[in-house]
């Protein structure tokens, strides 16, 4: 749900990084935080356990610039990927304008990717949102590792909507901004369609 503030002339959108545990959602946000101008971002808030596993969410507000007189601000959230934090994941999807699904390319994580995508579908439905229609981008992360499945397999297993997808290596920043840009674009186009 976008928030258009005429008083401040701002468009605010909420983007959520979703995916299985340890797929690199938080790493995406950390890379973005480290690379954008400090004046265009707020604090990176991570509600994590002592072992740096996301407990509730990470949050990064980002100002991308002005479009037609409106400041565009994106609130980036990650969900906790571990299966047992499902209640928290549901809450974070509330009011989401778009989702980046981060898949772990390693062979042994393929099943977790599919489970997480199914979980996304179920949790979106509880917020009256649909996986078939919400702005969505896929990121195939960890492409630098040796034991990865092919892009074709990832595509056939996860990308049933044929949405934009990107290969990535989040700690090095490969594919990180491309993924964010693709979703931001979809969300703004969606906003244009709805208005």
């Amino acid at each position: 749900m976008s928030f258009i503030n005429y008083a401040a002339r701002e468009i605010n959108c909420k983007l959520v990084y979703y995916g299985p545990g340890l797929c690199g959602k938080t790493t995406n946000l950390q890379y973005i935080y480290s690379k954008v101008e400090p004046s265009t971002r707020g604090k990176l808030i991570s509600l994590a356990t002592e072992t740096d596993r996301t407990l509730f969410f990470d949050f990064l507000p980002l100002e991308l610039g002005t479009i037609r007189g409106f400041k565009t601000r994106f609130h980036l959230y990650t969900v906790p990927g571990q299966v047992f934090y499902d209640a928290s994941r549901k809450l974070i999807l509330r009011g989401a304008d778009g989702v980046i699904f981060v898949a772990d390319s390693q062979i042994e994580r393929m099943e977790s990717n599919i489970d997480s995508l199914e979980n996304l579908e179920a949790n979106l439905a509880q917020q009256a949102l649909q996986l078939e229609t919400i702005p969505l981008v896929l990121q195939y992360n960890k492409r630098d590792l040796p034991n990865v499945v092919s892009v074709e397999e990832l595509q056939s297993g996860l990308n049933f909507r044929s949405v934009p997808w990107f290969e990535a290596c989040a700690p090095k920043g490969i594919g990180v901004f491309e993924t964010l840009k693709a979703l931001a674009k979809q969300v703004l186009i969606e906003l244009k369609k709805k208005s």
Partner: protein
Amino acid sequence: MFGTDLILYEEDERRLTAVLSRLCEESKSRAAFLVDKSGQLLASAGETASLDTTSLASLTAGNIAATGGLAQLLGQKEFSVLFHEGEKDNLHISVVAQRGILVVLFDRRTSLGLVRLRVKRAAEDIGQAFTEMAVRSAQEAGKGQAAFRAQIAQITDEDIEDLFKS
């Protein structure tokens, strides 16, 4: 105001800010914020200059969402009031008019009792403002959205590309 997207017009913001200013004054609180349940800051008043209001809004919404989840587990509709006590400053957080979250930051200059009392009245004012905004928004939807549509319809792929140049 309360369709799928949330649209806040200048007069709405002025009205909500006035309610928050009065709340700060009457309850002798440091600051007051109105946040949407999805974590967007709608309006604020008081000593806000030194505060990271964006983070505050996001964390407050997360807090309310988590507490709401707890309430459901226990068969409650919601826990509508949260109180956090600090060494110097305290936070009073309450759900207002179902979708708003009213956050009051206060210190020793006042008491929890006074804050609660004033919050109750402010919540009524905010509820009334929300209702009127929703009615007006429905009536003026065409007008407001037409103006916005004209602006947003001009967005090109190039505009979006430009956002990511730096």
